């Protein structure tokens, strides 16, 4: 009888221990939970990204967003304001950036092919809005160092053009 009880106890303890290990491993593989209480020091920033094609019609763009002093997690991407780039979905990006911390994000979009050259943007236009979360606490009044690099911009035929990319932090709207 004692042997049987010891065996049952051994099995239960083994199951408990191994289950704990398995659950811990599974928790590590899961992406961080985005909702719920925000850890102290977490900073959410919204960036409006603007591209200026300097007078040439812009049919496609691709830029890379990096930060050299903080890793971040992408929590949302919105399309820009021009109808030529309105596909009814966000611009292309790798969803890996939303599943954990990263130090770079590539965003890209092309104009709807039915838009002719004279219908494409030729002046500065907001092409995307990116919502990012910085988990590392930032010093007071310090913004993370963010770099934008325009890796591709093309005209109505897909030929490369020179363009400028910039961003601005969006001030959160406060309820009156």
């Amino acid at each position, binding site marked *: 009888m004692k042997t049987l009880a010891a065996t049952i106890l051994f099995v239960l303890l083994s199951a408990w221990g191994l289950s704990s290990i*398995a659950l811990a*491993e599974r928790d590590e593989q899961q992406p961080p939970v985005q909702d719920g209480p925000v850890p102290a020091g977490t900073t959410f920033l919204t960036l409006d990204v603007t591209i200026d094609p300097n007078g040439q019609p812009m049919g*496609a763009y691709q830029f890379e967003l990096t930060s050299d002093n903080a890793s971040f997690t992408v929590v949302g991407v919105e399309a820009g304001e021009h109808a030529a780039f309105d596909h009814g979905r966000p611009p292309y990006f790798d969803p890996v950036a939303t599943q954990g911390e990263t130090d770079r994000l*590539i965003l890209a979009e*092309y104009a709807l092919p039915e838009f002719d050259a004279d219908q494409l943007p030729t002046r500065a236009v907001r092409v995307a809005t990116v919502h990012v979360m910085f988990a590392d606490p930032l010093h007071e009044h310090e913004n993370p160092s963010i770099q934008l690099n325009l890796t591709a911009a093309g005209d109505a035929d897909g030929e*490369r053009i020179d363009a400028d990319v910039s961003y601005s932090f969006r001030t959160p709207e406060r309820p009156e």
Partner: protein
Amino acid sequence: MPQEDEQFDSLPPAIVDALRDLDGPAVMPDPRRDADVLSGARQHLAETAGLSRKRRNLRLFFAGGAGGAIAAAAMIALIVFIASPVNGPQSEQDFAANTPDSPQSAAARPGDLNDDGTIDILDAYVLAKQIERDPSSLAMDLNRDGEANQRDIDWVAQQAVALNTGERG
């Protein structure tokens, strides 16, 4: 024995006589012999019971150990199954890379339509334009699913923005 006589009434006389011949004179065993037999029987039972308990304990030990081992093995198998990563492609790019007939495995950088050595959004744009002009052209069927459509454009664009292979600008 009137009751016995009544029972024998229905039997043939020969059988009744044979039955009555079975009853012999009463034999009384020697009480000392009886006590020896009883003592010996008790000793034998005691030894047998002790041996039996040991065997039963041994059986329980092995059965319990085997049961525990089986349960532990089953638990380990279950945990390995739970903890193993989700099967299947994690991204379109993985899907393309793991598909034998995918363009990626068929030729080097098949999405580089403008042949500038880089797969970027300009290639997707060129492809979208070509498919817009001639949707029936199977030359633009990069993912080889039998038709040139939005999925081919998405395939190129997703390669352009992939973080694991995207080229840093």
